[in-house]
């Protein structure tokens, strides 16, 4: 199927206007010896055939499992209005708002999104978003290293998402940055061992709240300790939890990052997602990526515009604060719509539902012989259980019963082969949790 409007007759007319004999004639700058040696693609399909094909391919995925998988990516409810509004083509088919007069919709939406993130985290300023929570964390490291001069060490808590820690190592392989990791604890960050690793070369500490095991913490004491030594604190957070748990702004954290997928963005097998970043007034000029600002136009009317662009790659080239060019504008729009719909009470209710259901799941698991719920501190909607057998085996069997029971931790942490990380969102019912607990007990009895 072709989406070309011009008819062959029109194309001939246009070629004549260009003084060219044929379309191929326009490609004469490509030497003959560089003609494609092959260009063998499947025959073009009609829209009807394409629809049928993808419906069939999609049906080969087990997206219908009762989902207790989390690990930083969650199966939350998305109100219908999010899709309805975010699919408006004026948002979908526009470019980056470099021409502000015809992009006020996008620009105001970004400004509102920045505000939502600030209010959620308690920070002063947020950028227009980056690719995902992992790249946000990497960009936060770069911000810290540029802000704290002549130090090149970063200390990470092992409660930071292991996927993000792997990303940080990959990104910095060619740079001279030292990473140190605080050994694992299931509960809150181990202060003594963290402080032992800090030295005069340390630029920043990376924490996560709730951490990968679901434990909530108040990092205020770590922030104070670090600030006394000129060290910045970066915290990765779960946005839904922010409705109930202490936000980083109340702890004095310097740079906040997180994965915004939970805010109205489908799981979509890993992307596109939304990396959010927020910081203090002091560090705002170090933020990477786009920033929308409110100003006035030539007539004195309120208007919005991309601002502080002198930090960015299209102006500063090799000296830019980051190579990031795009933001996840459409995902940020979804987050803005989601937070506007849920609002103050709605988001609290979602958070309370998650927390209460996770608590109920814990109680059910405690009653299963051989299962230990790891409870070294309070958790939000995710927690770890220790099984008497290999967690991957159990997960494999549970899947056959229609339940994705959680994430086995052996692949991420040594010695945790029997541990399963279980997440519960507002979409899971008492019945789902009961079915899960009964199936688990049954599987373990065999």
């Amino acid at each position, binding site marked *: 199927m072709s989406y070309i409007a011009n008819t062959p007759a029109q194309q001939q007319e246009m070629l004549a206007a260009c003084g060219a004999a044929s379309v191929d004639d326009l490609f004469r700058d490509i030497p003959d010896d*560089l003609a494609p040696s092959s*260009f063998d693609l499947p025959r*073009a399909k009609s829209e009807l055939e394409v*629809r049928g094909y993808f419906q069939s391919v999609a049906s080969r995925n087990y997206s219908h499992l009762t989902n207790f998988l989390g690990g930083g990516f969650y199966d939350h409810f998305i109100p219908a209005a999010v899709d309805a509004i975010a699919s408006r083509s004026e*948002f979908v088919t526009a470019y980056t708002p470099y021409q502000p007069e015809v992009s006020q*919709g996008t620009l105001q939406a970004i400004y509102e999104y920045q505000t939502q993130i600030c209010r959620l985290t308690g920070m002063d300023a947020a950028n227009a978003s980056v690719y995902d929570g992992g790249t946000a964390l990497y960009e936060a490291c770069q911000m810290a290293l540029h802000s704290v001069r002549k130090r090149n060490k970063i200390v990470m808590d092992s409660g930071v998402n292991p996927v993000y820690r792997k990303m940080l190592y990959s990104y910095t392989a060619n740079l001279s940055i030292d990473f140190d990791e605080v050994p694992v604890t299931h509960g809150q960050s181990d202060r003594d061992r963290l402080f032992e690793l800090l030295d005069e070369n340390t630029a920043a500490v990376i924490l996560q709240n709730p951490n990968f095991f679901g434990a909530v913490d108040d990092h205020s004491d770590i922030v104070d300790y670090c600030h006394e030594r000129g060290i910045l604190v970066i915290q990765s957070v779960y946005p839904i939890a922010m409705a109930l748990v202490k936000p980083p702004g109340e702890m004095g954290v310097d740079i906040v990052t997180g994965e915004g997928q939970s805010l109205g963005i489908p799981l979509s097998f890993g992307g596109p997602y939304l990396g959010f970043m927020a910081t203090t007034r002091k560090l705002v000029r170090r933020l990477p990526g786009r920033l929308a600002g409110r100003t006035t136009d030539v007539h004195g009317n309120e208007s919005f515009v991309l*601002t502080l662009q002198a930090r960015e790659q299209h102006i500063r080239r090799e*000296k830019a604060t980051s190579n990031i060019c795009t933001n996840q504008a459409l995902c940020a729009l979804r987050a803005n719509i989601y937070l506007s719909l849920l609002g*103050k009470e709605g988001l609290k209710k979602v958070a309370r539902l998650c927390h209460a259901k996770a608590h109920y799941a814990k109680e059910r698991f405690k009653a299963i012989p051989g299962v230990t719920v790891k409870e070294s501190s309070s958790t939000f909607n995710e927690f770890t259980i220790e099984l008497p057998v290999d967690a991957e085996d159990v997960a494999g069997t549970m899947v056959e019963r229609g339940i994705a029971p959680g994430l086995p931790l052996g692949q991420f942490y040594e010695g945790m082969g029997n541990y399963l990380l279980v997440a519960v969102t*507002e979409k899971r019912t008492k019945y789902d949790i009961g079915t899960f607990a009964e199936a688990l007990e049954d599987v373990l009895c065999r």
Partner: protein
Amino acid sequence: MSLIFEKSVPGRTGVSLPECDVPSDAYIPTEFSRQSDLDLCELSELDVVRHFTALSEKNFGVDTGFYPLGSCTMKYNPKILEEVAALPGFAELHPFLPQLRHGGMLTQGALLVLYELERLLCEITGMDAFTLQPLAGAHGELTGMMLIAAYHRDKGNTKSVVLIPDEAHGTNPSSAATAGYTTTPVPTDQETGVLDMAALESMVDDRTAAIMLTNPSTLGIFNGQIGKIAEIAHRHDALVYYDGANLNAVLGRFRPGDAGVDVMHVNLHKTFGTPHGSGGPGAGPVGVSSHLDPYLPVSRVVKRKDSTYTLDYDRSKSIGYIAPFYGNFAVCLKAYAYILLHGADGLREVSGNAVLNANYLMHALKTVYELPFDRTCMHEFVLSAREEAKAGVRAVDIAKGLIDEGFHPPTMYFPLIVKEALMIEPTETESKETLDCFIAAMKRIAAKVKDAPDSLHNAPCTTPVGRPDEVKAAKDMDLAYLAK
């Protein structure tokens, strides 16, 4: 227009959630709880829908009208692609699922999409292997630079410099610098508009890690010497990076892999069917020749003998994780569907008509505006408003004048090597009627430069706001609506 926060009415809500069906006496201890009030807005669903509908009406998209934004390939994208990406079997799939034991069998459909798209991109570009993980074009460039660094590190090469033509996108030097390289610009021949080969040859030496090329260049000119450039680079064990930003121009007519390119990225959102979404998300898959395959990020999708797919993480030389999972999967889905809709002939028609439309516009407009490099162009061309600027009307004024004519402006002031640049890329999906209307508008503006320059200085006057005060925006830095 009021901010969403200014419309808030205490007690309203825009969502309907289920009652709690489990005991709800659980609480988070005070020491870990939020102390400040959660200051989000309180609105009905209709309040929210009206607000964002009103915002959308202040936007201009490809579906609104002609968007000849050079370098950005603002083509029309078929609606079926959005439908495919939203199928619940894809949209509701958790990315950790295939990482459970035998979990790959639970996501065979998704793994097939990844595998097949990688294969198709290899055929389209002539590269040996692809990773779909890079999340955007600039992210692809960074991944490519990381692969190049891994290659040199593995070979024991100590190389520190990346050569980049002076007309390149800003992301090129920025990505190379982010990966730890120093960058050196290579001049463009001011007569021909192509890379100065003599200069390049004198600059390549044993410190050169890579040469980054965009071909066709940002001037819309194809550099037929690309094979020779690869030879020069390879003589010094430097690699050639091909920025696929302009791939739309050469689909089915040139494959970077055939010219000796070692690494490249493709902007799926420009060439293969994902709309730009007001600035993202896109995707920037990276293709490599076989000698760089061992360094590709994990995971890799593998097809087994029994025709099932699995993920391989066991690659000792891999640069590791550059994305949390398998890339911007929904964007990859759209690209796969786009390629299937078009087939080989359809993709050749895409490049053919993109180039025809650009040349048609160029021939009509060069009679009224200066065309610094007057030669057959590819998918885009660059005009200069240097003469108009002498008369007091700058490129930005022409751009804003076009808004009042009902068009999105071209890219302005880029590439940097053309003064008062206006970079125009019509894309293949625009009709001759639309192009003729645009030509007529550009001619009216050219007349206004002489007769009514102030009307251009004051443009646009048909939009919700006039030109914003950017100096004030940077000085006051009002980035969020917060209580003082």
